[in-house]
């Protein structure tokens, strides 16, 4: 029985009709396609099956049955084969890509609202390790395929709409259409000397054909600390303190009175932490006609930190336009954006103080003065009051974190302006010329106000530091800035960079089977053109409206400084050749020739960076074409060399210094200050680092594209990595210098798997797994260059060392092997110094009866060896639900908060208290209240964790309200659960100095705790 079936095909995302959809009767050649209004009409028998397919959408089938009207809603196919991937100076179909490239689309990004889009992609892409801090405005550390450099720049290269930029904090994530991450050298080599750490390409949204679309979206959120570590209370603290004092003994030890007699039982985290609120409001208007398209957006984003008054707000504006001229022969594209950020930072050191300050110290004394660390040593009661013959001392040397936050008065403002204009001229239908110029200008302004008098009077010594005393000091020292009422500092920075690309692209198919693509271009650019100016003044009026240098007190000298940086210019030539035989055999060769001004003193300052890659689509071969269940299978492999031009330099100079420096001395009966000099560091010629990488990958889709995935294996080696070298101890030179001195390797596996299935029209689900494993190693270290130490705990202890055969700056310390139970045990065994019972004992690794550095052991890296991302999505009618998880591990992290006690009066966690050694036989694992401060494996813990980083429940209403095509309401919980055995606040420890390996990466000393956020949001499309 044949009948005519009609219907409309619409796009599920925007409910707009989709023209040009193929409608085919399965197993036949009969078919049609939809018209401009998405309508179709076809004659079919009742037992026949209609297939609807369209590029970029999932194929759908319906049995005709008795229906005469079949309306179809097409679902976006996120990982469609025909998906376009941005590859640098061009694009390519996903199915034809021969390098290792991971991509993420707008809707995935927006599931995890954040200030900076890199925060949202954690766990979404294989081989991309993101270490995040939840501090407002923090920039996550992005590491692609391991750290391959010791002393050179580690930042990935960001390309926004074709232009190199240094960061993307100025970009509203809602404006991002796609992020493509180029991971292997065969893909990144087109960016030459800047590409060694991987490339992240961001493409912002453009207007699409169809009627004007207005999108409104808002969310409101509240966040609190995720993984609260419970501290000891007053009772526990007093017990612990007294045990320590008993163990110390001697004339100066004293005991605290019981907690019941102490003035407070403060929970410093409670006192310090507020619920942080956040909200974002976004408006975007877009559309396109035949000749032009437009996309406007405005975003207002506000986020509070969890410290009092800590906040950040950002407004972004964007205008992306395209214009076509001369019969679409010339296309002009512009992307203009501005980001205006304002923030009130607060000192993260407060978290450290909250951890350490004693619970018996009150936040405030009854008179409003901030609580201090004073204790009456005679009575053992916290406080600053002493009777006759009683002495006051300090419990510890920790400040009052609430005071610290209260007196921190900084305001930062940043303005980032970015503009890109691109002209694309079609010379013929296979040859086009593109010229693109992009500029970025950033302004920063920082204001730091320090109420010196207020701090002295309200947070200083409650007895002696009175306002009158301050006045006396000020009167006695009228020009000494230490006794000014306040200080005010303004810092201004400017930064400019630009790029100008010109390239020709060729793309033509010969004899229907041979497709050749070619690219040749030249680019020049300038970056790091940095200007800095700072002025400090003293004694402005206390009211904020007068905080201006001109109102400073004339008794004090203003201090100003200003400087320029040396900017970097770059001139590069690049080319690419692609060959594609019938979608079956693929080949690509890239070459980049880079000249960077940094190396102008280097005779050969041009560097050449070649790469090639090959692909073989096996499913195009006859022997695999008709294998049931296998839809697509591609084998690909590549090799390439990329560079790192952000390397440090030596400079020949004599050391001279006009201050207190060890080149100067005093001579003469009057001890006159005499300037001297010494020779500076050794100078070695330094060039860019070269990273060489081989990659092999497999991509597949099977079971009607329900299962899709890829596997990649890589081996990358940075040859002659630059190290900061300490001269041999007994050599004449005394300044550290840089020289290339080691190879750093990263080898790994990456797996991405996605399963998506529609159980019926109402119910569909998807499961995704992303896994990557990376092994880092340092090899071929030059003699005498080994042994650089790092990971300072700021108490004289270090925890990391660079050594041939170990991961970069691997953990290196004593191995704890129990607790000294009694003095006899101590006397009869090798030990460090003169420990007491209850101290940790350390292993004599070389059994020579002495414990020294030769008994320190390597304990692997702070860098995770594996990263894991999980995604689960479920759609039922109008309801969508998803859970995302992220994990990392295989590494060790150091609980420095637990491990570094200075004077024994710092607070401890409840766990430390409960587990402590209390006498012979009590435990052979945990030290007692009296313990040493030596860095050891006791404080080194597994860094493995799994965090549910997003749970979202959404409900979509379509066409229920006139003129509103779609409303989606959702509830999201970010980071609701953290599974880890780590005893600190967060296993994600970026460290200082942008996470430099030799610094405190992987060490928790003052880290910002992870937070969990509850969000309610609404998206409206008109």
């Amino acid at each position: 029985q044949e009948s005519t079936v009609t219907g409309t095909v619409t796009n599920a995302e925007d409910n707009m009709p989709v023209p040009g959809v193929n409608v085919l009767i399965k197993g036949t050649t009969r078919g049609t396609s939809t018209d401009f209004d998405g309508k179709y009409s076809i004659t079919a028998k009742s037992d026949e099956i209609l297939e609807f397919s369209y590029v970029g959408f999932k194929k759908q089938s319906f049995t005709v049955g008795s229906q005469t009207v079949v309306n179809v809603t097409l679902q976006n196919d996120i990982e469609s084969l025909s998906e376009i991937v941005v590859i640098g100076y061009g694009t390519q179909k996903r199915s034809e890509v021969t390098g290792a490239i991971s991509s993420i689309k707008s809707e995935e990004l927006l599931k995890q609202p954040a200030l900076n889009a890199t925060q949202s992609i954690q766990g979404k892409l294989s081989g991309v390790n993101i270490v995040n801090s939840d501090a407002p405005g923090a920039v996550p550390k992005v590491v692609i395929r391991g750290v391959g450099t010791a002393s050179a720049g580690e930042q990935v290269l960001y390309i926004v709409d074709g232009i190199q930029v240094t960061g993307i904090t100025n970009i509203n994530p809602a404006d991002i259409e796609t992020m493509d991450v180029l991971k292997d050298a065969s893909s990144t080599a087109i960016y030459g000397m800047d590409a060694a750490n991987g490339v992240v390409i961001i493409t912002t949204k453009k207007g699409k054909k169809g009627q004007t679309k207005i999108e409104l979206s808002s969310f409101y959120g509240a966040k609190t600390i995720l993984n609260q570590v419970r501290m000891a209370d007053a009772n526990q603290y007093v017990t612990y303190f007294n045990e320590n004092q008993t163990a110390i003994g001697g004339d100066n030890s004293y005991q605290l009175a019981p907690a019941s007699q102490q003035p407070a039982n403060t929970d410093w985290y409670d006192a310090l932490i507020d619920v942080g609120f956040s909200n974002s409001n976004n408006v975007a208007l877009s559309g396109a006609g035949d000749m032009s398209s437009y996309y406007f957006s405005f975003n207002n984003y506000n986020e509070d930190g969890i410290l009092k008054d800590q906040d950040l707000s950002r407004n972004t504006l964007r205008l992306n336009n395209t214009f076509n001229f001369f019969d679409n022969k010339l296309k002009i594209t512009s992307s203009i954006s501005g980001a205006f950020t304002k923030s009130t930072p607060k000192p993260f050191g407060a978290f450290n103080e909250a951890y350490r300050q004693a619970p018996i110290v009150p936040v405030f004394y009854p008179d409003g003065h901030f609580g201090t660390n004073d204790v009456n040593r005679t009575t053992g009661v916290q406080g600053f009051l002493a009777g006759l013959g009683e002495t006051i001392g300090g419990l510890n040397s920790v400040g009052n974190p609430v005071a610290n936050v209260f007196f921190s008065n900084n305001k930062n403002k940043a303005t980032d302006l970015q503009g890109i204009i691109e002209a694309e001229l079609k010379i013929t239908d296979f040859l086009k010329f593109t010229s693109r110029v992009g500029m970025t200008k950033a302004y920063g302004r920082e204001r730091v106000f320090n109420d010196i008098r207020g701090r002295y009077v309200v947070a200083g010594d409650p007895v002696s530091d009175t306002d009158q005393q301050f006045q006396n000091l000020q009167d006695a020292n009228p020009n000494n800035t230490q006794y000014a009422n306040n200080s005010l500092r303004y810092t201004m920075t400017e930064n400019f960079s630009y790029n100008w690309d010109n390239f020709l692209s060729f793309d033509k198919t010969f004899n229907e089977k041979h497709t050749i693509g070619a690219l040749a271009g030249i680019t020049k650019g300038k970056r790091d053109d940095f200007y800095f100016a700072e002025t400090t003044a003293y004694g402005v009026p206390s009211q904020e409206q007068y905080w201006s240098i001109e109102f400073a007190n004339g008794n004090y000298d203003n201090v100003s400084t200003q400087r320029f940086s040396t900017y970097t210019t770059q001139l590069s030539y690049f080319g690419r050749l692609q060959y594609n035989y019938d979608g079956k055999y693929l080949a690509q060769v890239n070459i980049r020739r880079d000249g960077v001004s940094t190396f102008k003193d280097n005779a050969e300052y041009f560097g050449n960076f070649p790469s090639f890659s090959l692909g073989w689509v096996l499913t195009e071969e006859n022997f695999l074409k008709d294998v049931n269940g296998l839809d697509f299978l591609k084998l690909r492999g590549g090799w390439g060399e990329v560079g790192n031009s952000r390397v440090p330099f030596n400079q020949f100079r004599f050391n001279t210094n006009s201050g207190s420096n060890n080149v100067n001395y005093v001579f003469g009966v009057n001890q006159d200050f005499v300037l001297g000099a010494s020779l500076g560091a050794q100078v070695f010629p330094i060039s860019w680092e070269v990273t060489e990488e081989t990659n092999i990958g497999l991509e597949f889709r099977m079971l009607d594209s329900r299962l899709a995935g890829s596997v990649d294996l890589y081996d990358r080696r940075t040859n002659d990595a630059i190290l900061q070298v300490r001269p041999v101890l007994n050599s004449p030179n005394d300044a550290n210098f840089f020289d290339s001195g080691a190879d750093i390797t990263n080898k790994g596996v990456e797996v991405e798997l996605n399963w998506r299935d529609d159980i019926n029209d109402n119910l569909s689900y998807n499961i995704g797994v992303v896994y990557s494993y990376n092994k880092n190693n340092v090899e071929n270290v030059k003699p005498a260059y080994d042994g650089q130490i790092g990971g300072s705990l700021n108490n004289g202890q270090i925890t990391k060392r660079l050594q041939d055969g170990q991961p970069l700056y691997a953990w290196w310390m004593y191995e704890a092997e129990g607790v000294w139970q009694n003095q006899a045990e101590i006397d009869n065994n090798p030990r460090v110094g003169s420990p007491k019972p209850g101290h940790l004992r350390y292993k004599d690794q070389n059994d020579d009866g002495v414990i020294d550095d030769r008994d320190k052991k390597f304990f692997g890296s702070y860098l995770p060896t594996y990263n894991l991302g999980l995604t689960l999505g479920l759609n039922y009618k109008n309801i969508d639900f998803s859970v995302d998880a992220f994990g990392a591990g295989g590494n060790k992290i150091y609980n420095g908060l637990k491990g570094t006690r200075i004077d024994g009066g710092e607070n401890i966690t409840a766990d430390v208290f409960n587990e402590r050694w209390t006498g012979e036989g009590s435990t052979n694992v945990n030290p007692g209240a009296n313990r040493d401060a030596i860095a050891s494996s006791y404080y080194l813990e597994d860094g493995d964790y799994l965090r549910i980083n997003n749970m979202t429940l959404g409900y979509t209403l379509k066409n229920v309200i006139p003129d509103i095509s779609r409303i989606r309401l959702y509830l999201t919980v970010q980071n609701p659960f953290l599974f880890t055995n780590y005893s600190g606040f967060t296993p994600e420890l970026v460290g200082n100095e942008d996470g430099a390996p030799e610094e405190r990466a992987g060490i928790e000393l003052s880290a910002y705790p992870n937070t969990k956020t509850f969000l309610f949001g609404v998206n409206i499309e008109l």
Partner: protein
Amino acid sequence: CDEDYLEVDSRDDIEFEDSGEVVTPEEMVTGVYGRFTGFSYAFSYLGVSEIISDNSDKGSSPGDTGGDKNLLDDLTHTTSSSSIRAMWEEWYKSIGRATIAIDYTQNYENYDANLKSRLIGEAKFLRALHYFWLVRSFGDVPIQEVDLVERAPESEVYAYIINDLQDAISALPVKSSYAPKDVGRATKGSAQGLLAKVYLYQENWQAAYDAANEVIASNQYDLHPNYAEIWRASTENGMESLFEIQGRGETINHGIQQYSQTQGARGSTGWGWGFNTPSENLLNAFDAAGDDVRRDATIIFRGETLWDGRVVGETENPMYNEKAYSSLNVGDGDGDKNIRVLRYAEILLIQAEAATHINQDAATPLNLVRERVGLAPIAAPTVQQIWNERRLELAMEHDRWFDLNRTGQAAAAMAADGKTFVNGKHELFPIPNDQLIQTPEMVQNPGW
């Protein structure tokens, strides 16, 4: 495109040739002296010269180890002890600066020849001093100008030192002929005095005696009449001084960085970190000798009133090092006090000790030292009596540990102080492990 585009001149750091600066040989030699103002001399040096000996204890709070000062105090220091490493590096870096300064001076054109000669003499004296400190601490050590890895036998190192000192003696003026602005530089007498001490360590008694005699005969020096005043700022570079490390406590601060602070009294009424405190053992030695003058000049007692009127209150430790007390800069980072490295009293004691071995008059020089502090003369002094005198006269002046090892008294003295001295090991410090990581072929000292 024009490749001139890539010509970007640095504007961050001024290249030396662009700075317009001229570095003179005099500045380079000042740079050698300058290393004396490093923090090593204020902390690490205390550990390896005094805290380790029977003269002093670590001091400070029980929990404050001072890095490895607790280990040195217990004689449980290791190849990783930071103080030993710091001094090893410090002395070699100073030697490096001296050698570079000598080369620089020799090759510098259009410069006063006399000044050149004197500057080279100063640098050679300083190089010899640092090698002497190295060789008596570590035994065989590499001669930096020869090889960084191969440890030269002690005898070669001493020959090198003596050669430098002889050059210095012939190049340097006597103390009194320096202009007032140059007071504090190495003099002929500094080099002669150091040479006497070097010969003493080599047990070359005649040469030690003669070198000491050269100093005495120069008529440049005498004993300061009041022992207690020797370490005060008022007597700096005074009649008794052969060589001092210069420091001042005013802005620009350039004291021997924190030397007085690290040893200042600790506690709520104190002014310092309280390290390197005189030991009970030292106190007993003073008392046994009836030596009140030197005891009270060497030790600050808890509760006492100091010579400048400061009342020492309730402090954490019962005794502190008075020779490190900087009256004008109490509690400041940099003190105003010079460190006495070599003074006339020691020259007399060197002569006395040498004299006992070559049948010369030991009593006269020894008794000059004793008379000043009101002790009865000794008619026919034994070597042991001279050693005892050295201890009390030079207490807390960074000589004791090396003197104990030189004279073979170390094992007994340590035992008497309750520490286990391992013969064949503890005489020398270990070569720092960090050095051996850099140069694995270098041989470690026995026992380490």
